């Protein structure tokens, strides 16, 4: 019995050593916003390249930035660009920089669960800011009702659901609220994990969606696909030109149109509250954070190969998962930037 156990042990060890040699494992972690997209990509890419496994864990954008800076993962992913201080910390720690690569674009939607209301609601920026500041507490508040004539809203308390982890989705959401509400800007600000005035915390886009789905009279914000794939309603938002826009891929592309032409070299750009009649105001790029220098050449080449594929063939998977493809100008610019990875 003991010998058998010992033998089993030895076999297991040997097996895992041999195994380790034949496959290349690359680890990444970060944003939950593009997680459905990335898990599909890495799955498809693994089918094409059986010897390469890219393991992606959705721990939140804040986590992506932290872990890639710590060097505990090979690459990070985030829906908020790293700020100057974070870039400097990275530079100091590694002696080389880190690059941002936009992969797809998405919309953050206001999703809700109000028993008896199946209509798509309209939200003014003021209503959204008011709800998330805790100033608007009932669903039948005039600020919400006035934009939704014809819909009977209940007099129930609003349950606000937000993220409990450091999140890029939160950044996009609060970045937008900061742009449209001075009070929000002063009291809360834009960031990955702000001090929320009200609400419940859910972990990840998955957690917020789950909580909204399970909690009557709740409102939360999630990436478009989480609302769509879970069949919970989401509302239109009034954009900077005064039209209510339903979140859609076209509306996201419209929001990115301006930024696409004037993309900075480091790709760090915000497209919330973008101009344009058709633009959905809470849209964003999402980025992969890839170190400039790799000590392991095989990992570097594998990642470069993956990036080229993702920007080319990979883009075709985007729309079926409710992400908007990157504008052509941006793709062209990125393909050049890939050469910076050494």
């Amino acid at each position: 019995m003991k010998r058998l156990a010992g033998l089993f042990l030895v076999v297991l060890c040997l097996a895992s050593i041999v195994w380790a040699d034949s496959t290349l494992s690359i680890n990444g972690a970060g944003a939950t916003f593009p997680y459905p997209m990335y898990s599909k990509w890495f799955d498809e890419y693994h089918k094409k390249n059986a010897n390469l496994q890219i393991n992606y864990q959705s721990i939140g954008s804040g986590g992506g930035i932290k872990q890639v800076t710590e060097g505990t993962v090979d690459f990070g992913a985030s829906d908020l660009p790293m700020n100057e201080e974070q870039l400097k910390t990275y530079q100091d720690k590694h002696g080389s920089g880190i690059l941002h690569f936009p992969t797809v674009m998405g919309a953050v939607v206001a999703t809700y669960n109000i028993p008896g209301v199946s209509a798509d609601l309209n939200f003014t920026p003021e209503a959204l800011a008011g709800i998330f500041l805790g100033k608007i507490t009932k669903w039948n508040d005039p600020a919400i009702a006035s934009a939704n004539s014809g819909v009977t809203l209940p007099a129930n308390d609003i349950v606000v659901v937000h993220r409990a982890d450091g999140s890029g989705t939160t950044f996009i959401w609060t970045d937008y609220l900061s742009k449209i509400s001075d009070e929000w800007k002063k009291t809360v600000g834009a960031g990955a994990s702000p001090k929320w005035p009200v609400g419940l915390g859910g972990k990840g886009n998955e957690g917020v969606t789950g909580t909204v789905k399970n909690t009557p009279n709740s409102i939360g914000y999630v990436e478009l696909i989480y609302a769509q794939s879970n069949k919970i309603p989401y509302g239109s938002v009034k954009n900077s030109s005064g039209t209510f826009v339903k979140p859609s891929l076209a509306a996201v592309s419209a929001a990115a149109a301006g930024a696409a032409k004037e993309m900075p070299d480091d790709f760090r750009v915000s497209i919330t509250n973008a101009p344009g009649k058709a633009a959905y105001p809470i849209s964003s790029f999402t980025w992969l954070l890839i170190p400039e220098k790799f000590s392991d050449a095989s990992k570097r080449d594998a990642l470069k190969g993956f990036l080229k594929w993702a920007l080319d063939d990979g883009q075709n998977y985007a729309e079926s998962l409710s992400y908007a493809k990157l504008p052509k100008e941006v793709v062209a610019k990125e393909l050049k930037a890939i050469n910076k990875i050494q």
Partner: protein
Amino acid sequence: MATSTTAVPSAGPVAGSRSFLSRLRDGDEIARLITFLFAASVVLITLLLVFELWQGSVLPRHKFGFSFFRTSVWDPIFDQFGALPFIYGTLVTAGVALIIAVPLGIGAAIFLAELAPARISDTLEFFIDLLAAVPSVIYGLLGVFIVVPLMREYIQPGLKNTLGFLPLFQGPAYGVGFLTAGIVLAIMVIPYIISVSREVLLSVPRDQREAALSLGSTRWESTWKVVVPFARGGIMGSIFLALARALGETMAVTMVIGNTPTISASLFSPGYSIAAVIANEFTEATGAMYTQSLIELGLVLFILTFVLNGFARLLIVATSQRGAGMGHT
């Protein structure tokens, strides 16, 4: 640390250590030394743990000092960290848990120790021990899918309708929150209270009961007025043990507490606990101050459980010895 990691491979398969032992058979001193190294590594690991927690929380300890425990702002954007809501949430949920678990646990322990025939008592104790082995994440799973909807649909509205005038039971029924976390924790710690209290009650000398009964007490009176007071210390110990468990519990609480740092008199309000905030934010805390503040929370949790565990053990040991001492005379 180095001793333990390097020594591990040489130890070989565990239960099969006899061949390994035989090689060492000659020298008592060598054996003594080697086993000493293993024993010492336990102390080393523990010291290292304390050191890492202390060392890892230098920044917030210097910057915030004691205000860390008094302020309630947890704002990573502006690097302001106050632990009060987490400490509050941890204590409140643990408190709710004890209010529910203590009467139930002690009641069950009295039944097992005093009333049930040995066979039934042992069988039930066996099940209680199994219950204690159910992992936290399973309680969380059941909490999310059973307790939370039940709370939202029935229990919280019910409490609101009957006891809603109390500040404890006001506000919207989210389902998640302090009360729900407390209930889940109560279910988790009951087995600990039962097991330990039963042991302690069993150690109460027989003549104590017989004396009370022979003086004309009813069975309940002899139990409640003589046996339980005799075992009081040990029962308190079991409660402290349960409290320490409840404070440090992570997964189940994280899944049902609502994850929002609030201080509210209402038990319906969502909250946050120390362990839950570490679980949610540790991997993604950017910036040294943020990470170290979380480690300081870990340190707080460590100290809390350390004190409680020490206290519990003292009480249990003292009571058992008292019982044993009386038994011999």
